[in-house]
């Protein structure tokens, strides 16, 4: 609790600086490009078009209860958000090495400002997702109120994984490399592009894969409403996310100054 309050205070004290860092990153994103912000949409479009093509050719199995374009668009948007947060956070000691080593900027401020770009991407992409959802005849519904709540837990989970692996990566670079490989593998078992079978033992185990839970439930709420959600699984996943988040905050609280001696 002490760590959470301390980090929260650091965020409040530095909110103005966070905005400055975010503006820097947004400006950097647009530097020397003609298409600027459109690069937010282009990268996910590549795997999207490939997977939609494969599904159309019946190379990969389609979801029976949802149009496969919708299935893949929502799946990739959410999965990409999670992996982007994780990757950005894992690389924080590399991307902000100078600031961490030479200034007194709290680590939590740097982590949050670096990830702000990912949130910015998410909002941009979610607007497009909503258009796609509506194109398939789904009307705006009150059930969607649960989505931002799930997003909070999903962000906590992704940030925590990123922080833990960022510190682990100080020991051996293998941690980040391994995690990157793992995230490629997880794409195929997290119901991102095709449904993972739920009725066998592997499926039951996989229902506790947080990537699978978050992707599947958010997409389910978008299309079917809140009745789609298995609250036991969501509760357990959220609890795991909170526990990991508290651990990650403690790690930052206790190690953010010590870490300078190994950078």
């Amino acid at each position, binding site marked *: 609790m002490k760590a959470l309050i301390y980090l929260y205070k650091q965020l409040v004290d530095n909110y103005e*600086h966070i905005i*400055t860092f975010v503006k820097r990153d947004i400006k950097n994103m647009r530097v020397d490009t003609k298409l600027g912000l459109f690069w937010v949409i282009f990268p996910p479009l590549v795997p999207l078009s490939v997977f939609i093509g494969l599904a159309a050719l019946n190379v990969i199995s389609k979801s029976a209860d949802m149009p496969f374009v919708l299935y893949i668009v929502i799946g990739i948007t959410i999965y990409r958000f999670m992996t982007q947060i994780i990757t950005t956070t894992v690389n924080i000691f590399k991307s902000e090495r100078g600031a961490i080593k030479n200034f*007194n*900027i709290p680590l939590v401020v740097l982590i949050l400002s670096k990830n702000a770009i990912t949130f910015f991407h998410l909002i941009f992409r979610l607007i497009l997702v909503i258009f796609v959802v509506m194109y398939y005849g789904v009307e705006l519904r009150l059930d969607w109120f649960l989505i931002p709540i799930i997003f909070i837990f999903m962000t906590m989970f992704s940030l925590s994984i990123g922080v833990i692996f960022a510190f682990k990566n100080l*020991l051996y670079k293998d941690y980040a490399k391994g995690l990157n490989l793992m995230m490629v593998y997880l794409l195929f078992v997290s119901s991102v592009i095709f449904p993972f079978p739920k009725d066998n033992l592997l499926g039951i185990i996989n229902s506790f894969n947080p990537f699978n839970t978050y992707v599947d439930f958010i997409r389910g709420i978008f299309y079917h409403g809140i009745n789609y959600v298995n609250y036991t699984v969501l509760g357990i996943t959220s609890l795991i996310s909170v526990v990991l988040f508290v651990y990650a905050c403690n*790690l930052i609280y206790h190690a953010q*100054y010590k870490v300078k001696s*190994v950078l």
Partner: protein
Amino acid sequence: MMNDKILEVKNLYKKHYNDDETKYKYAKNILTTFSTTNENEVPMLEKGEYWSLEDISFSLNKGDSLAILGDRSSGKSLLLKLLTNRLYPDYGTIISPSNSTVLEELRLGINGHLSVLENLYLKAALVSISKKTVLNNIDNILKFAEFDRDVLNTQWKYLTSDSKNKIMYSFLVNCKHDFFVVDGLTHIGDTEFANKCKDMIVQVSEDSTFVIATRHSRKVKHICNKLLILDKGKMTFFGEIEEGLKNYDS
């Protein structure tokens, strides 16, 4: 008098390492030791470690300005980092003002794609200075750096190297915190501008808690009243500057 103390360092020890194995051990320790306080007694040196600072104790009262003298690798910059809370000691305590302005590599943290004003804000964020302070001092910053307001919208990368240093120097001395630290005296611009910088440093040393680390004793004679001499991480003198310089120069 205790109340006048603005900076106090007691039995400060800082280890350093010179091999990957020890670095790995440090990194492992970070992940396993959930403690923000350092040890109760001076830790033992282990294989691959050496003391980069050893048993440093001194204090400064309000109005004091300190010069840290020493050869290369004597631990001057490291001591400054510890005093400004940018590093943690392995043992000992440091009581120092929470916010400090550090005049060292001027262009650290700057982004070439941003404008001059945006870079001032960025640097301000890195050294914990508010935007309001920057805006309140913008005229002084530009006046000292010898630029007019038009420069604020110029992209940083199109400035000359000298102009960049002048602007950053001017920003740091005009928006400073009460604790001002200088790591080496850098020569900026032509002789006239360099003299202006020297005068500014004298002024800063008079109205803030001031610490400077350098290898050149003659440069600090007229700025500081206290002297700390470091030799291979050990403090060989702390006291009045006149007395200390006699030892150092001889």
